[in-house]
C-alpha cells in the first residue's frame, strides 16, 4: 500500500511536470495537431466539447468549450450561421486571418482575446470562454460567451438587518463586484484581480478605493496574498487563514461579511476588501475590537437609539465573558461581596447540588456549546428538537433532580444568550472561547485569578495589530477624533440648505 502510494505520487509528479512543460508551449499552425494535443489534455473530460466546423467541405475551424458554461445562442448566431451559410467572407481584402475576422466581424461586441499559449487557452476554456482555432493560424480566438448558472441574490442569512439593503453576495465573483460597483460608482474603486490555488485557479479580487485606502494596509495585503502557496481555495476562509497576523488569537482579525453595503462602508473607511470566487463571504481587512461590537445598520438608524444600543451591547459582551467566572469567584471565594440575602438564597439552592460550582458551571457551559453547535447542524425539520431537549432535559429535569443547581442554569444561559447579542457573529466566538480559561482561573484563584485572566486578555488585545492597525484603536492608542464612534454613534452633520431657492423655506 505504501509502495503504491509512493509510486502514485511519483507518477503524479511526472504528469504534472509533463503537462506544465507542454502547456507552456505555443500552438502550431496545423489544426489537426492542435486538436490532438488539446484532446490529450482534456482526456476523459466528458464535459469539454470539441466541434469542428467545416467550410467548403474541409475542416477550417475548431470550436472548443465547456458544455453548459457558454451561451450557445451567441455562438450559433454569430459564428456558426454566418460561416456555414455564407462561407468565408469574400472580397474583404483587409482581412487576412480567421482571428481578425472573428475579432472584427463575428464578435463585434463581445470581449475577445487572441492567445497562442496552450496553458492560457486551456485556462480560458475552463473559465467559460469559447476557443476558436483556425487552420493555418497559430493564434486562437477566445470569446467570453460564458453563461454561468448561479443562485439568485438573496438576503444574507447570517446578517439580518431591520434597515438597509437586502442584497447579499452570491457565489459568483463577477456578480459580487457588480453589486459593489453599483454602490460605489466611481472609477476610483479598483478591483485588482489575481488567481490563487495551484489546482483551483480561483479568481480573487482585491478591492479598494484609490486615494482613500490606507496604503500600508493595501501593500501588506498584496504582499501576503502574493505569498500564498496553496492547492485549493474553497472559501475565503482559506485566504483569511493564510494572511492573518497570528493564528493564536481567539479574536478575528478581519471582517467576514455577506453584505455589499458593509464592504462598501469598509472601503470608504480606507480598508481593503478581498473577494473570492465561489463564496458569498467577502473579507474586509483589518477589523478592530470596537468594530466587532458594531452592526452595519448602526449607521442607518437614528443616533440616540444606536448609541444606547451600543452601550447595551458592550455591557452584554463583557457580561457574557465574565458572568460565569464572577459567579464562581464570588460564591466560592468572596461570599462577603454578595449581599447577604442573595447569598443565603444561593446557598439554599446549592445545598442539594453534589458537584463543586466550578465543575457544575464548566459542564453547563460545555452543554450549552453542544446545543448551539447541534442547532446549527441539525436539519430544519428536527431543529425544534434541540430546543425542547435543551429546555426540558437540561433546564427542568437537571435542576429538579438536584444534579445542577438552579443559579448555575441561570448564569450559564444568561451568559450564553448575551454572547449572541454581538452583531459580528464571529466576534462572539472569541468571547465564548475566552470564557473557559477565565472559568479555570477564577475557580483556582477567585477574583485575583479573574483579574489575571482579564489583564492577560487585555495585553493580548493591546499587542495585537492586524495589518499594522492596533486592535484597540481608537481607545489605545487614543484618537480623540475617532473616539466618538466607539460607544456612541455620533450623528452626521445635518444637510445644510443654502442657496437662493431654499432660503425662503428656512424658519
Amino acid at each position, binding site marked *: 500500500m505504501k509502495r503504491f502510494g509512493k509510486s502514485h505520487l511519483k507518477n503524479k509528479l511526472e504528469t504534472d511536470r509533463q503537462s506544465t512543460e507542454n502547456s507552456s508551449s505555443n500552438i502550431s499552425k496545423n489544426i489537426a495537431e492542435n486538436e490532438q494535443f488539446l484532446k490529450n489534455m482534456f482526456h476523459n473530460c466528458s464535459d469539454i466539447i470539441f466541434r469542428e466546423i467545416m467550410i467548403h467541405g474541409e475542416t477550417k475551424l475548431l470550436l472548443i468549450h465547456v458544455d453548459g458554461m457558454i451561451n450557445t445562442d451567441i455562438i450559433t448566431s454569430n459564428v456558426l450561421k454566418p460561416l456555414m451559410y455564407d462561407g468565408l467572407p469574400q472580397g474583404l481584402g483587409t482581412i487576412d486571418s480567421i482571428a481578425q475576422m472573428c475579432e472584427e466581424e463575428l464578435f463585434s461586441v463581445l470581449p475577445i482575446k487572441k492567445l497562442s499559449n496552450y496553458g492560457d487557452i486551456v485556462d480560458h476554456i475552463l473559465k467559460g470562454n469559447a476557443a476558436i482555432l483556425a487552420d493555418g493560424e497559430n493564434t486562437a480566438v477566445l470569446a467570453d460567451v460564458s453563461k454561468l448558472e448561479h443562485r439568485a441574490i438573496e438576503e444574507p442569512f447570517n446578517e439580518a438587518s431591520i434597515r438597509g439593503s437586502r442584497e447579499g453576495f452570491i457565489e459568483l465573483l463577477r456578480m459580487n463586484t457588480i453589486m459593489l460597483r453599483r454602490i460605489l460608482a466611481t472609477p476610483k474603486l479598483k478591483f485588482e484581480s489575481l488567481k490563487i490555488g495551484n489546482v483551483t485557479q480561483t479568481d480573487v479580487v482585491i478591492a479598494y478605493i484609490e486615494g482613500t485606502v490606507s496604503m500600508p494596509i493595501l501593500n501588506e495585503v498584496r504582499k501576503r496574498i502574493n505569498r500564498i502557496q496553496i492547492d485549493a481555495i474553497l472559501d475565503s476562509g482559506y485566504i483569511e487563514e493564510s494572511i492573518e497576523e497570528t493564528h493564536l488569537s481567539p479574536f478575528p482579525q478581519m471582517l467576514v461579511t455577506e453584505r455589499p453595503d458593509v464592504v462598501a462602508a469598509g472601503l470608504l473607511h480606507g480598508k481593503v476588501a478581498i473577494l473570492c470566487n465561489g463564496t458569498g463571504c467577502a473579507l474586509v481587512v483589518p477589523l478592530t475590537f470596537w468594530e466587532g461590537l458594531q452592526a452595519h445598520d448602526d449607521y442607518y438608524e437614528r443616533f440616540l437609539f444606536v448609541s444606547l444600543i451600543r452601550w447595551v451591547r458592550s455591557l452584554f459582551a463583557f457580561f457574557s465573558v465574565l458572568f460565569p467566572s464572577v459567579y464562581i469567584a464570588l460564591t466560592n*471565594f*468572596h461570599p*462577603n*461581596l454578595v*449581599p447577604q440575602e442573595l447569598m443565603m438564597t444561593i446557598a439554599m439552592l446549592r445545598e442539594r447540588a453534589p458537584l463543586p460550582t466550578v465543575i457544575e458551571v464548566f459542564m453547563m457551559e460545555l452543554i450549552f456549546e453542544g446545543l448551539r453547535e447541534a442547532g446549527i447542524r441539525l436539519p430544519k425539520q428536527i431543529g425544534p428538537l434541540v430546543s425542547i431537549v435543551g429546555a426540558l432535559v437540561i433546564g427542568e429535569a437537571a435542576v429538579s433532580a438536584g444534579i445542577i443547581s438552579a443559579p448555575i442554569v441561570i448564569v450559564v444561559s444568561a451568559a450564553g444568550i448575551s454572547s449572541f447579542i454581538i452583531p459580528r457573529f464571529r466576534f462572539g466566538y472569541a468571547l465564548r472561547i475566552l470564557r473557559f480559561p477565565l472559568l479555570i482561573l477564577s475557580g483556582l*484563584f*477567585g*477574583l*485575583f*485569578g*479573574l*483579574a*489575571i485572566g*482579564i*489583564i*492577560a486578555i*487585555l*495585553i493580548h488585545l*493591546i*499587542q495585537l495589530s492586524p495589518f499594522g492597525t*492596533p486592535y*484597540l484603536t481608537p*481607545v*489605545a*492608542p*487614543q484618537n480623540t477624533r475617532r473616539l466618538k464612534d466607539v460607544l456612541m454613534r455620533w450623528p452626521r452633520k445635518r444637510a445644510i440648505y443654502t442657496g437662493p431657492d431654499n432660503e425662503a423655506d428656512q424658519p
Partner: protein
Amino acid sequence: MRKLSGSQIVWMIVTTEIVAIIGINITPAILISKQDTWISMLVAGGIGAALTFLVVHLSMLHPNQTLTQFSQALLGKWLGRLIVLPYLIAWYTLSAYLLRSFSGFLKPLLIDRTPLWIIMLLLLGLMVYLTYSAGITGIGRYCEIVGPIIIFVLIVSFILNAGNTDWHHLLPVYADTGWVTILRGSLRPALWFAGPFTLLVVVAFMQNPQKALSKSMLGVGITVVMVFTATLMVLLVFGPNLAAKIRFSYFMYVRTIDILNFIQNMDIFIVFVWIFAVTAQLSLFLFVASYETAQLFNVKNWRNIIWFSPPAILIMAILIPNETVLAIYDQFWVSVIFPVCGIGIPLLLWIVSVVKKKASESKV
C-alpha cells in the same frame, strides 16, 4: 520601535504613581501631619513636580537618548556607565520590593490559601507578557486604558462616601502641626510624585519630545489632585487619629461605602482594579530596567534581557522574608536611593549638559 504619544505619557504617570501613593503612602503621611495631611499632599505635589521637571528637562536636553546613552555622552564611557549602576540597582530592587509588598497585601484580602510565590509568579507572568510582547508602546497603551478606569473608580468612591464625611475632623487647620511637620509628612509622597526616575528613559521614546514637559506636568497634576482628594476624604471620614491606625486607610475607607444596605465590602473591588494598575507599574519598571541593562552591556536587542531580569526580580522578591525587611528597604529608599538617583545624579548631569551646551555655543 513605535513611539509613545503625549496622552500615553500622561496616563503612564498617573497610573504608575497613583496606585503607589494612594495605596501605601496615605497612612504614613497621616501619622506625621495628622489632620493637615491634605496640605502635606499639596506641598508634596509641588516638590514632586519640581523634581519631575528636573528629570524631564534633563531628558529633553538629549532627545532620543535614554539615561545610559546620554550619561555616557556627557561623562565619558566609564564614568557614564558607573553612574547608571545605582539606577539599575534601584529599579531592580524596587520592582522586587513592590512585587513582594503588593502580593503580601493581596494575599490576606483575596486569596488566603494560595502561597505567596504563586501570586508573585502570576503577576510576574503578566509583566513579562506585556513587556516582552509589546514593549514600551504596549505599556503606554495599557496605561491609556487602565488609567481612565482608575480615575473613574476613584471619583465614584469619593462620591459614594460623600455622605459619611464630617468637616470637624479637619480642625484645627495648621495650628497643631506647623510647617516643619507638614513638610516632614510630605516627604515620602513627594518622592513618589516624582516617580522612580523612569522618565529619564521613557521620554526618549516620545513621538514629540517637545511636549514631554507639559504632558508630564499634566500627569503629575492629575495625580496630585486625585491623591489630595483621596487623602482629604480619608481624613473626613475617619478623622486623623483613626486613620493613622489603619494601615491601608484608603481601602478601609472604601469599605465604609454602603449602597442601600445591599452593596458592601467594595474594597475588594478596588483591590481588583489595583491589580491592573500595579501590573502597569511593575511592567514599566521591568521595561526600564531591562532596556537600560541592555544599553549598559551593549546588547542590541533588549528583549534578550527579559530572560534574565524577571527571574532576578522574582528571586529577590522571594528572598524578602518579612514585613520588617520591607520597612527597612523603604527607609533605605527614602534616605539613600532617592537622594542619589532622584536628585543628586540628575542635577549633576543637568549641570554638565548645560555647561557643555554653553561651551559648544560659545565655540560656534
